[in-house]
């Protein structure tokens, strides 16, 4: 703006001065020159006045733009506060503002509806699923049930179980997304990792896996302890599920990061696609395809970053603090 002002003023001043001198020198009589000079004064005033009005208008436009920027920057689809703009002397801005208010309202209602749907769908599915499972359980107890019927019931039960597992995972995801885990504390990842490994002890033994702990320092993160446990449990469970026979799980912890690796064949999907929902290899039917998206959500919520790579025949997942 300052630069513009100078660019604007200097040529005007120079040309005025030049015109003034030219007239002074060339005019034969003082009368003409004086008359010209008098005529020049309103001209100069006019130029300055015009300049001033333009400046004011630019200032108003700039403020309006800043207001819009600010409103868009502050916009959170989860906040119910209404977005409001001041009236503008320019009709185009009023139109734009109206359009923006409408757009923001629509985004907000869509978001709320989407959130409601996920929550309701998962919750409303729980009871019917429990009732299906319960009746299968009762049918299974009847004494004169044949082998064929048991087979069918086994399939019904398996699928009902699968549905309710997916359902609880989705409920968990929606709880994380809607920040139901707000109690944070300093969580020591060494302690959590050891606790989770303890919980999975039998399972690790059954699969004949060797546990390698490489703890050089303590990794502490300010986050919900429950989420930290779910996070590491998901990672360990993944490492067990996608391991090779007689394989190992290596956990490396230093002051800035947590990593978990296990041997396994290279995947034919892009690493970033791994964290998407419902992605899974066809041969791992029991997997829900939600584990890693839960991991990613928890990380995002807790100021952590997660990445995956495959080197030297090993799958590795790294978690470190978000530097931004």
């Amino acid at each position, binding site marked *: 703006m300052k630069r513009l002002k100078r660019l604007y003023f200097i040529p005007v001043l120079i040309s005025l001065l030049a015109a003034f001198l030219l007239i002074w020198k060339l005019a034969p009589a003082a009368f003409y020159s004086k008359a010209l000079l008098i005529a020049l004064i309103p001209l100069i005033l006019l130029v300055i006045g015009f300049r001033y009005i333009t400046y004011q208008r630019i200032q108003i436009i700039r403020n309006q733009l800043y207001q819009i920027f600010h409103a868009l920057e502050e916009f959170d689809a989860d906040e119910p506060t209404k977005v409001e703009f001041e009236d503008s002397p320019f009709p185009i801005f009023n139109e734009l503002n109206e359009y923006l208010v409408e757009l923001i309202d629509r985004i907000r209602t869509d978001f709320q509806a989407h959130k409601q749907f996920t929550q309701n769908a998962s919750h409303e599915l729980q009871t019917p699923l*429990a009732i299906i499972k319960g009746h299968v359980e009762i049918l299974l107890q009847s004494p004169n049930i044949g082998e064929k019927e*048991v087979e069918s019931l086994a399939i019904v039960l398996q699928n009902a179980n699968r549905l309710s597992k997916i359902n609880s995972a989705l409920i968990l995801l929606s709880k994380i997304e809607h920040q139901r885990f707000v109690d944070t504390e300093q969580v020591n990842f060494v302690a959590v990792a050891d606790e989770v490994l303890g*919980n999975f002890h039998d399972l690790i033994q059954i699969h004949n896996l060797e546990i390698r702990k490489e703890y050089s320092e303590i990794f502490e993160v300010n986050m919900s302890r429950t989420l930290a446990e779910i996070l590491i449990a998901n990672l360990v469970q993944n490492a067990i599920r996608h391991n090779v026979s007689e394989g190992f799980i290596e956990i490396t912890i230093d002051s800035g990061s947590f990593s978990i690796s296990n041997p396994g064949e290279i995947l034919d999907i892009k690493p970033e696609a791994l964290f998407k929902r419902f992605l899974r290899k066809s041969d791992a039917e029991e997997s829900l395809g939600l584990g890693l998206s839960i991991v990613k959500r928890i990380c995002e919520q807790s100021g952590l970053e997660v990445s995956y790579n495959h080197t030297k025949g090993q799958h590795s997942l790294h978690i470190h603090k978000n530097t931004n």
Partner: protein
Amino acid sequence: MKILIIEDEQDLLELILRYLKKEGYVCEVATTFMEGYKKINNYEYDCAIIDLNLPGGDGLKLVNILREDSTQTGILIISARDTLDDRITGLDIGADDYLTKPFNLSELNARIKAVMRRKTNQFSKELNFGDLIINLDEHKVTACGNTLQLTKKEYNILLYLARNKARVVTKDSIAEHLWGDYMDGAVSYDFIYAHVKNLRKKLADNGCGNFLKTIYGIGYKFQIN
């Protein structure tokens, strides 16, 4: 033994009722807060199963009233509210156990038995199946006079199956009983399979080989010959 079930979801109520009647309990039901309140005031029950979200009031109040009336009644809350706070409040005002919906019927059955054992002397300190005796106080299992060396998990599986004796217990419900929601899918089934295999071997080595029956694709059954 007399049980009162207070639950407004008709289908679920029906389900619980059928399952528990087979177990030989005398069951009464209430579907609203007021109905539950009247029954609690007018009759005596050995055990009450109370849902928290009831039409007409909060089930927690019923727990409170029931507990003030009698310390002998076993109280089990069943609720879809699953936060730690809800659980703590429920147990604080006098419930004996808190089961989150949805649950397996065999889990409910096992919990009722555990609550009643703690509450009264109606359930003895051991489960006696002839050759096989489970001592609940000492967590000791005796097969044909020999004490078995069981791991904690093996003991828990055996107890869970025994509490649901002569019923088919699904793998899924065993997994949930042992782990909560921690595990899913075939990993937990492998785990249960391995434990039951060990358990069966230990029983067989001591002459009690045929208590645990596999129901292919579904789970296991504790049967008494």
